[in-house]
């Protein structure tokens, strides 16, 4: 029996179907927790982020428009990532922020290029691609994405010129984009 798509689940969630939210939670709760835990390094804080993200999905589901290229997984994990980074920044007394959901349109208007790939396969594929990056580029991406460091902060942490950090990030992201677009070559 075919599993309902993310968009179908969202339509059911919009009709206040708790089972549909549970299905989405079963599908992405684990990766959401892994992401928040990687950012925060603390289980209870990561769980709060996951809880908040799924409650946000519940509360905002009625405004979700699959016709606009709605990307449920991207939306959910962007919420988790941004809020975990915000939480981490507050912990270190740095600039906090909030990502209003209506400013995510740039992120959501791009279709989910991974929609036909299961979370398990995507995990293997992405980790493999990350490993194939030069170590300095991989580390720059990890510091920026998982630890929320700016270019300047990465430069200070790594004792590396700012321009070098920018180049590593730019090159790393472009290479990653190329590798992820051609999974059959991996």
């Amino acid at each position, binding site marked *: 029996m075919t599993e309902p798509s993310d968009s179908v689940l969202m339509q059911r969630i919009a009709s206040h179907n*708790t089972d549909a*939210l*549970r299905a989405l*939670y079963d599908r992405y*709760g684990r*990766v959401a*927790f*892994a*992401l928040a835990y*990687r950012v925060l390094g603390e*289980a209870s804080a*990561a*769980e709060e982020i*996951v*809880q908040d993200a799924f*409650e946000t999905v*519940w*509360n*905002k589901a009625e405004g979700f428009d699959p016709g606009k290229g709605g990307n449920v*997984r*991207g939306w959910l*994990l962007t919420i*988790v990532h941004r*809020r975990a*980074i915000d*939480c981490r920044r507050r912990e270190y*007394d740095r*600039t*906090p*922020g*909030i*990502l*209003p959901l*209506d*400013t995510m349109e*740039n*992120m959501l208007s*791009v279709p989910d*290029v*991974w929609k036909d790939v299961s*979370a398990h396969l*995507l*995990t293997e594929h*992405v*980790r493999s691609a990350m490993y194939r990056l030069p170590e300095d580029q991989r580390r720059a991406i*990890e510091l*920026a*994405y*998982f630890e*929320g460091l*700016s*270019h300047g902060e990465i430069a200070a942490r790594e004792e590396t010129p700012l321009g070098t950090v*920018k180049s590593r*990030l730019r090159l790393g*992201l*472009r290479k*990653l*984009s190329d590798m*992820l*677009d051609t999974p059959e070559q991996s």
Partner: protein
Amino acid sequence: MNEPSAARTHQDAEELLEDYVLGTLSDTDRAWMESHLQTCKICQEELAPLIGVMQALPFAAPEPDIQMNDAVWGRIEQNISRPDTVAEDSSFIPLKTGPSPLEEAHQPSLTRRMRIPWSAVAALMLLSLIGGILLAQVLPSFGEEDIQGQQIAIRFTDPDITATGELRYLPDEQVFVLSIDNMPAAPAGYVYQAWLIKGDSPVPAGVMNVNQGEVASTGDRSQFDAFAITVEPGPFGNEAPTSDPILVAPLHDANTT
């Protein structure tokens, strides 16, 4: 990069693109990028493949050495099954039925039990300005637009708050920057949240960093009637305000440049 008042170019946006998708920009820079992306086709095309990477990066997180507590789903289920507390009349923003967190901590004089439309806040502010009875901190505001943006008068609704500050609007970037000195700490578990208000509809506009006393909010000034700050549950604030504004600023009055 943190030069909200300087004129910015497409080249600046290209420099910020990676930081933008990685989520490492300051609020001000992020707001400017959002604004730039709405009109720049080149940046939109550059952004698309990077967003594909961003969609994939969460899956690069290593498997945690600890499992998520089974109780998380139980908490979610409990919270989403609560009765809807939003007012039936959506043109009214429900104000709290008891003292706000700030009132409980500092200002019992603000306690009241009522609901008011947000458009009334803007209207009252405007009338107060016209009548010259506003106790606002009207900022010096002449001849600085090119460098520092437009200055907008702000007013704390509680006279017990002695903080001072300013609200500036950067028209090129369409960013509001509120800077407050000596802002009292929000009560434990709460934050100061900014709102841009059109008619009866407040739009979330960011959470203030009390340590820096700043919040940057993106929005076209001509599309909103007022800017306000309320106290909301932390750390992320709310999708709709649940308390009375502690600071208000009408966006269409004669005391701005």
